[in-house]
């Protein structure tokens, strides 16, 4: 199912991982090993963002930080977007991050 995400403008690769970080599946322009590495990175990053959200919640005493809904890392030419256990790489010139995040959120419920 997540293969359909490649149809979104700018999406170059997509991977899915389990809660324990194991690579489940990946599609796109990257070799299999790099799709697995992308999933591994996203799993680690998800935990970091969860930690950051916990700390923001703790320090500010304001609700609404946790659980985090996802994250985006914006590079010069490429971005990495993730929601739940899905992650994709996006070419900034061709993609729309709002659209990508919307589709990722939808796909995370599959």
């Amino acid at each position, binding site marked *: 199912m997540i293969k359909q995400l490649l149809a979104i403008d700018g999406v170059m690769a997509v991977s899915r991982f389990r809660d324990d970080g194991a690579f489940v599946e990946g599609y796109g322009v990257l070799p299999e090993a790099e799709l697995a*590495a992308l999933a591994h990175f996203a799993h*680690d990053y998800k935990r*970091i963002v969860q930690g950051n959200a*916990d700390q923001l919640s703790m320090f500010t005493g304001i609700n609404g930080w946790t659980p985090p809904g996802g994250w985006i890392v914006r590079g010069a030419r490429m971005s990495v977007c993730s929601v739940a256990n899905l992650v994709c790489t996006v070419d900034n010139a061709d993609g729309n991050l709002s659209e990508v995040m919307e589709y990722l959120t939808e796909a995370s419920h599959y």
Partner: protein
Amino acid sequence: MSVAAELANMPGVVAAGEYSYRGDRFTFKGQISDEMARMAAIMCRATTMSEHMQVGMLEQYCPGCGSSPPQGWIVRGPAMTVCNIANVFCFIDNDKSSLNAVVALMRKRLAGASHDLV
């Protein structure tokens, strides 16, 4: 005696504690409140998770170069320092404690700790 209790008895140690990697529990000894200890456990856990990810990346570039698995980290402030080995943290007063002695004890007592983050 737990590692945290042993650390708490050392000169200059303000507090020491242990947290679960899952983030669902913590224990501590020392001169801080329960709420501050909870905060300390959340912060230290977040940094440890982050360190593991970063070392994983370093290891991919430089396999077997001696970084992985990471044992811990130290954050140095002007008057206070935080040391963390495995899932145990320790807050120390820079002027009243020996950082080397604290880290040595932690590394010795936690040498067999699992690196699985579970």
